[in-house]
């Protein structure tokens, strides 16, 4: 089974300021970008179930010029609060890499 990480050029997470966490999923070409969007691999409800966040808190963008999908959520732990273990928010994307694609 192919995974999102196999077809993406880059999957990353990062702070967008201390209070927002953002995820970028970028593709090399139109084909994989369209395929992932058309197959609804990454929807708000899918993301909500993986990350235990409410759908209403998720902003999802498709960016054709960048051939990228972007998702932003309120930071689950505010940056550098006592339970935050990722100052830059750079290692929160792991579960997305393993998302399975339909055949």
């Amino acid at each position, binding site marked *: 089974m192919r995974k999102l990480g196999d077809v993406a050029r880059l999957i990353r997470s990062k702070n967008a300021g201390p209070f927002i966490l953002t995820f970028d999923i970028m593709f090399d070409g139109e084909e994989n970008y369209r395929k992932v969007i058309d197959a609804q691999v990454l929807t708000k409800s899918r993301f909500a179930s993986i990350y235990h966040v409410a759908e209403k808190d998720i902003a999802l963008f498709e960016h054709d010029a960048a051939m990228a999908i972007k998702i932003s959520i309120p930071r689950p732990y505010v940056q550098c609060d006592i*339970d935050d273990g990722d100052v830059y928010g750079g290692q929160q994307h792991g579960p997305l890499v393993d998302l399975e694609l339909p055949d």
Partner: protein
Amino acid sequence: MTEIRVLAATGMLGSGFLESSFARGISLEPHVIACDAGSTDAGPAHLGGDIPYFDREVIKRDLRLMLLGRDQCNGRLIVGSCGMGGGDWAVDWMRDIALEIAREENLSFRLALIKSEQDKAYLKTRLGQGRILPLMPEIPISEEIIDTSAHIVGVMGSEPIAAAIETGAKVILAGRATDTSLYSTVPVMMGAGAGPAWHAAKTLECGTAATIQRKRPDCIFGWIRDDHFDIEPLGPESRCTPQSVAAHTLYENADPYLITEPDGVLDTREAQYTALSDRAVRVTGSQYHKSDRYTVKLEGARLTGYQTAIIAGVRDPFILRQLDDWMDKMRAKFAERIKEMYDGKIGVENYSISVRVYGRDGVMGKLEPRRDEIGHEVGLLFTVTADQETTSRAIAKSFAHFALHFPIPEWQGLISGLAFPFSPAELYKGPAFNFSLNHVVVPDNPLEMFRTEIREV
């Protein structure tokens, strides 16, 4: 047609760039050389504790090349968010480095220092007037939060920088500023289109981050005209493609199309990205919409306590299968022990002990979908946070010893259940801070929150 040339030295002052790339940039006669020196990205400790992010020597190396380059092309040099946090102390620190370089290199220029720390009485007045507004996600604000924040900065936009440039200043060292305003101010003042200027600024501000396969921090150059801008990296191995430039609007932004500044919003929804060569890109269709209301974002850092860390590994299978239970009991029993040892003078109201389990959910915490899985070993990070430095150190020493020998029912006799990589086991981390504000101020005018000092060097 107006053409304003902008040289971005690197994504962040002190992260370095190639001298050859920079020399090429200077030969293209930039009107402005800019660079940011900070953000909130590294956390609140830099603002809260007046701690610079990089060592002085690496800052001085980059700044020396930039001051010499500026002298050669006679453009403006703008550095913002000094020291990472952008506090007043950091502007003075950067000023002293610049003055030292000027003496060593025999340079002269008019220098502007723009400070962005906020007067607490001013903020409390604005709060009372209902002119401090929350951003999303909303966090509480009160006079007490303002009073107990160690430092609060306003994030300046273009206007204070433009005012400094109007005095004839050639070198501008600013406190906290939006990265974009460092790059957009001169082009907008000189008549370039606002849409292209702000979009170019957003693309340039991380240096070579807008290139494909960034290999190292380096210089990047923008040509900003009435209705478009061109961008090209200056290192021989770097390339921009339409996709890499478009993709940079995503970086560190919640919304890839709309980016809010104090006086308006950059709108890249209609932007078109075209290759000019295999390494240069032209962008058209960028727009900048002025806002009805001028707003200045606040950033505050508030002391949360004094921290001491203990790092330890666990490999014993019996401990691993009851890890949470073991650590919960350990901390409960330890609280009783502390009560005995300090005769009630130190208690749980003075300290907390948190633990992070690497190898299970250390990175993602409650977000980790695989937190039921545990490997053959884990790394533990205990963090003692206390209201005093002495308490933090004392509790950590006792806790490391107590935890080391804390029993499990399966083993009879004294165990040593933690593998410490260091002696002593505890590492004092210093004061810890959180971000205390996520708000904007509505000032009477764009300059009232910032203080500018002009001097001849």
